[in-house]
């Protein structure tokens, strides 16, 4: 469960201070599928960094599974990311010279999972992300964009995180492939009750989720459940 209490992030540039996020307050329950939407410069990336424990807020408190993440050290944040969060990036961020299986197993290396278990978990995770087994030993740069993003999703899943954060996951994909990727997210949410947050500026993408948090100029202007 995610709880944000009055989160603000203020960047100082010279004498001027710019608030990227202002007093954001919201809760996301386990198993929710949420989009954080807004035009570029609305502060959605900053918010994602805070939710993903990549950064801490200037003020306010952020609780992840009851733990206050807003005051942790760098190494403690790394532990949170390792154990609780799976990232999916717009540009996939795969290790190009490594095989699909190795890419997916990489988080397990840092989590000190024994080598024998890694491959088993990685295979399972890839099946959940919908990648065909024939690609498992390909190098990641031999894959198509859609396949790459599914590898990235599998990598985000492999540690069994409480939260999957996807930053513009369809931004580098054509509409059709984007659709397939979004469907995999939906499936993970419905079938495995994963908590998923998608950050996007496109309404069509946001509409695949169950709830849209709309940001503009750092403030939440709308928080709306979608009924289908």
């Amino acid at each position, binding site marked *: 469960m995610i709880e944000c209490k009055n989160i603000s992030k203020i960047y100082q540039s010279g004498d001027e201070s710019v608030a990227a996020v202002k007093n954001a307050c919201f809760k996301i329950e386990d198993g929710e599928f949420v989009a954080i939407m807004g035009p570029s410069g609305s502060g959605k990336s900053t918010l994602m*960094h805070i939710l*993903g424990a*990549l*950064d801490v807020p200037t003020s306010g408190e952020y609780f992840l599974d009851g733990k206050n993440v807003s005051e942790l050290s*760098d*190494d403690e944040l*790394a*532990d949170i*990311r*390792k*154990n609780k969060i799976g*990232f999916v*990036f717009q*540009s996939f*961020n795969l*290790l190009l*010279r*490594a095989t699909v299986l190795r890419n997916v197993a*990489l*988080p397990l*290396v*840092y*989590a*000190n999972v024994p*080598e024998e278990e890694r491959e088993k978990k990685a295979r399972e995770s890839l099946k959940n992300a919908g990648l065909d087994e024939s690609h498992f030993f390909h190098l990641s740069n031999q894959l198509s964009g859609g396949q790459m993003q599914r590898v990235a999703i599998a*990598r985000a899943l492999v*540690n069994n995180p409480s939260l999957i954060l996807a930053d513009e996951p369809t931004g580098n994909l054509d509409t059709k492939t984007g659709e397939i990727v979004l469907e995999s997210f939906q499936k993970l949410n419905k079938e495995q009750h994963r908590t998923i947050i998608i950050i996007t500026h496109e309404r069509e993408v946001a509409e695949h989720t169950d709830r849209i948090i709309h940001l503009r100029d750092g403030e939440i202007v709308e928080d709306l459940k979608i009924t289908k």
Partner: protein
Amino acid sequence: MKASDLLKETYLALVANKARSGLTVLGIVIGIGSVIAMVAIGQGATSSIQSKIQSLGSNLISVRSGAQRGPGYQISSGRGSAQILTEDDMKAIQNEISLVQSVAPEVSSRYQVTAKGTNTNTQVVGTNPSYSTIKNVEIAEGTFLLDQNIKNMSKVAVLGPSVRDDLFGENAASVIGKTIRINNIEFKIIGITKEKGDSGMNNQDDIIYIPLSTAQRFLIGNSYLSTIDIQIIDQDSMTLAQEQITSLLLSRHDISDSTKADFSIMNQADIVESASSITQTLTILLAAIAGISLVVGGIGIMNMMLTTVTERTREIGLRKAIGAKRSDISTQFLVEAMMLTIIGGIVGIFFGWLAAAIVSKLDITATKVSPLSVILAFGVSAIIGIVFGYYPAKKAAKLHPIETLRYE
């Protein structure tokens, strides 16, 4: 992150950039290789000089007529025929100093020597049979001087191999029994010495030995000695023996002030030591020059690692996003740098050893690759990895995950 994973990551990262990794390693290979080769050549030269000096006789003290003026400066041998050392001095040394094992007299001068149709100018040493044991003179053919030769003032000569070659040609059959003329006096050849090689100071093969009595009577015309060679019972007694000989001779020559001694005394250990110290200094100098290339190689490592960190910024960001701590990142890059230098070190040790072996094979100089220099080179290459890898690794670890993920 476990060690096995770390090594696997390192291997994959280095293999991904084979050409660059290879060139960077080459810098270390050249550095370590030249240090190993230089030290091997230096140490080989030192030990070959030492063994050559030792081959002139062990535990040797030489007393020469003529004072020593300042360190290392020997009085000219023009006065070296000075009438100072006598056979009585030699007998006194032998009888009165218990540390002395044996003594041999020496008179020496250069003469024109002729055989049938050939001639050469060489050193002629008049001495006794004891000389051969003291100075390690070995006989290849015939005999060395015998006691009866001394007693009878026989005109017999023992030739060094170079003299024989000069007078009779390299392919001459046995020359024993043939005659040569020294200063126009006829001598019969009774022996040829074994080849010793050039010791760097004087050539022990370009020499003729004749009986002392004969030399004093027919060539020099007086009964003085130019040198007394003394063998001491063991290495540890050298200094004490030297002091005893000095004071004995001073009192025999009625000299109270030791700085005014009319003879000089040389301890073989001192010669070995000073010769070794010269070659050791040269070794250090050579190794230091080679060490500079090692530093340059290290800078190459740092340069490559900095490039790598920049290139792999996004990868660093990803690793951080999936839970890598600062220490995980810095360790990874440090191990990469160390792996480069250690591989370079191992290959460098091999090539250094190879270069040393080739130098030995080509007879340029003897070489000796000591285990210590190998261990040292290996350690140094690992340390270079740490020193020059530390800054790039630190830089990588400090990168902020958000900025690295955004990096294009």
